């Protein structure tokens, strides 16, 4: 009867099974087990239910409002992604990537060894997955990642919901909303644009639009705030443009495609005050965002960054 009673100890603990309770009185093993059941029940009773639900009605409402066809397409896409990752992993007999995820409360960071090319640390709670092996590609959906890569450029990629961050030989910190480069540089692509972010610079990642304009650590707080507003609104506080120094030329250049006119005209005017464009670039081609002109000026600014006293 002992095993049978073990299945009834919950009822005994609730005082609902006198027959089993009588058996427990006579059985040392069942008494010991009943004590454990009561201890477990008491522990659970001491535990409060989570008070805050991290899901907002507006998010659920928005998803409910989505057309069914799109939901079906997303479901198919999700299935394909899952299938491709599984296939990718199954195809590779040798693990390219070995990592260790530690979940302890005392461990504030998770260390991930990226094979032979480097290492990364993710804050606890970060959501990280391998989605490709050539180049090695991780997906970061939430949390933050610090990366240190010792490999040729473009050997390591992290994708976030809104951008693709390609390592150009460096170390950097990344959240789905911002990348901050510590050494070397990265390319951030998303939407229809791509920017290069160098050591000592950071760049916002804009929801659904890819990278914003890189800003340097020493930039005027007034300029930084104006850039953040411009990334959201397409408008810039012209008086804040005065706070831009020659080293901020790259910021203004990368900001131009995000600005509406006439704000773009004002930013371009300030950019020309700060640094001279390459000979192949004209005011008009930049103003209409000609991609070849933008690239030429970007390459010039990356190759020869203006110094603080260099205004033409």
């Amino acid at each position, binding site marked *: 009867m002992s095993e049978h009673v073990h299945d009834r100890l919950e009822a005994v603990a609730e005082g609902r099974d006198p027959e089993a309770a009588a058996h427990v009185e006579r059985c040392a093993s069942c008494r010991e087990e009943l004590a454990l059941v009561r201890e477990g029940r008491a522990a659970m009773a001491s*535990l409060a239910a*989570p008070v805050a639900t991290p*899901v907002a009605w507006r998010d659920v409402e928005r998803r409910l409002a989505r057309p069914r066809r799109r939901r079906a397409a997303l479901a198919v896409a999700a299935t394909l992604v*899952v299938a491709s990752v599984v296939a990718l992993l199954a195809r590779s007999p040798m693990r390219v*990537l070995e990592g260790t995820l530690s979940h302890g409360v005392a461990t504030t960071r998770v260390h*991930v060894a990226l094979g032979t090319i480097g290492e990364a640390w993710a804050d606890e709670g970060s959501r990280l997955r391998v989605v490709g092996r050539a180049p090695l590609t991780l997906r970061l959906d939430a949390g933050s990642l610090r990366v240190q890569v010792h490999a040729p450029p473009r050997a390591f990629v992290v994708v976030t919901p809104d951008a693709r961050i390609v390592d150009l030989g460096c170390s950097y910190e990344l959240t789905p909303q911002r990348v901050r480069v510590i050494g070397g540089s990265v390319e951030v692509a998303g939407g229809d644009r791509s920017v290069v972010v160098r050591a000592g610079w950071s760049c916002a990642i804009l929801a659904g639009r890819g990278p914003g304009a890189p800003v340097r650590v020493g930039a005027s707080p007034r300029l930084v705030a104006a850039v953040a507003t411009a990334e959201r609104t397409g408008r810039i506080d012209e008086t804040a443009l005065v706070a831009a120094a020659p080293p901020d030329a790259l910021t203004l250049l990368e900001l131009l495609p995000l600005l509406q006119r006439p704000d773009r005209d004002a930013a371009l005017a300030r950019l020309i005050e700060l640094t001279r464009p390459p000979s192949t670039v004209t005011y008009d081609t930049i103003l209409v965002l000609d991609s070849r002109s933008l690239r030429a000026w970007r390459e010039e600014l990356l190759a020869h960054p203006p110094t603080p006293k260099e205004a033409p």
Partner: protein
Amino acid sequence: MTEPRDESEAALLAACRDGDPAARRRLFEQAAPRVHAIASHFFGRDPATAADVTQEVLVKAMSSLGRFRGDSRFTTWLHRITVNACLDERRRAARLVALEEREAPAPPSADEAALVREAVTRLPESLRIAVVLRHFEELSYAEMALALGCSEGTIASRLSRGHAQLARELRALRGGRQ
């Protein structure tokens, strides 16, 4: 098995099916804490996944109200969807884990509630779900049997074993702390 249904629950569901936005919001507000309580204790160390599963369940439940036949209480139906979503997500994540995952032993903690939560996450899934449904939703054995798709005898057994196992895990964790 048919359970008595609350008149106000029936009226609320009818209003939701008619597209009444206030009713839909009220249903969400009633359902969300229940779903989240189960998901957050099931995925103890992973609040982001618990939040994702909570949202998935709420979207699924609210978009499938037309398929809820009323054979059971709405909450029982909701629990069944939640339990299935938790188990599905666990299976899906298990397939996709590419980084080797080694769980570090729980560190010492002065917080008793944290120890209990950690002990809950160490229970096997079937026992964990039973214990969580019993304590946070206060379901009857019959309601739990409906939600989990098993007999009431199985529920009784899982609760007994779950609570005893929980006590053992707690003792082990407290031993590690000393």
